[in-house]
């Protein structure tokens, strides 16, 4: 029956419009994989630079004078990884949105950015305060925790898998703050491995 096809098409279109107008779906799985690789390289560099040099312990309250240089290097390293990961995500999302014929900076994208930015900015400031007090060991747990919260918060406006990725990051962050001597390892698991795993899953699920 012809009309039945029309009704089904109407429903499909209603659904697609609701999704497209509320969810940012231009996120590419590949950018997750790339972010994970940058994070693993970064974690390795951090391990060589900071853990090997002075035995292992970055997490005690250390004399500020002595550590300033290393902390500066660590912050620079973290910023380089961050810029690379975000840059890659933006470029790949632009490509994907062009392919799908979507505008990248739509209201859903704005919602994702705003909802991620609130926990991330709060976390960033919190981490700077920790560093200024010499609590370097909490760097890895705090980044995991706030990043996880940001993902859970933004997940309503993008792929639903992002929520479980966020929860995994929160759990890793809590574990990292308890087993603080393994902070870097948990960080590499969360930002490195989990990004790669989720990136591959999303790529296979949505981009094939």
């Amino acid at each position, binding site marked *: 029956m012809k009309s039945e096809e029309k009704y089904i098409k109407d429903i499909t*279109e209603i659904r697609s419009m*609701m999704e497209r107008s509320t969810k940012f779906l231009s996120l590419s799985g590949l950018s997750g994989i790339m972010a994970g690789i940058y994070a693993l390289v970064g974690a390795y560099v951090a391990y060589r630079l900071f853990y090997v040099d002075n035995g292992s312990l970055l997490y005690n309250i250390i004399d500020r004078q002595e550590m300033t240089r290393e902390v500066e290097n660590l912050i620079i390293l973290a910023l380089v990884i961050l810029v690379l990961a975000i840059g890659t995500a933006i470029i790949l999302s632009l490509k994907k949105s062009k392919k799908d014929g979507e505008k990248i900076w739509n*209201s859903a994208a704005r919602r994702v950015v705003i909802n991620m930015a609130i926990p991330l900015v709060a976390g960033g400031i919190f981490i700077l305060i920790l560093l200024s007090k010499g609590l370097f060991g909490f760097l890895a747990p705090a980044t995991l925790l706030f990043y996880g919260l940001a993902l859970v918060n933004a997940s309503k406006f993008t792929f639903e898998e992002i929520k479980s990725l966020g929860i995994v990051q929160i759990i890793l962050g809590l574990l990292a703050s308890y087993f603080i001597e393994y902070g870097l390892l948990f960080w590499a698991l969360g930002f490195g491995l989990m990004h790669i795993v989720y990136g591959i899953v999303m790529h296979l699920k949505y981009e094939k």
Partner: protein
Amino acid sequence: MKTFLDDLHKAFESRVRLGIMSALAVNETLDFTALKEYLDVTDGNLASHLKALEKENFIDVKKSFVDRKPNTKYIMTKQGKKAFEEHITALEKLIRSQK
């Protein structure tokens, strides 16, 4: 059968109008540009469909200025929400009844 068809609102026969209502059902407000992007239609076409929905009292229009440029926002009215929900239920029932 007849009753289902009665619930299918004439105003939603057009694909553009159905699209406008779907987008407004899940977004508190949307401006003209956003709707245009989602629906991929010309300004004139979109404006005439919006006018029609406004006439039915299904959507509300809020005009304001952002950086001295006119900005028109659209909101779904309670009446519009009700009509849209009825329309979807009717569609579902029709599909089911024909299976």
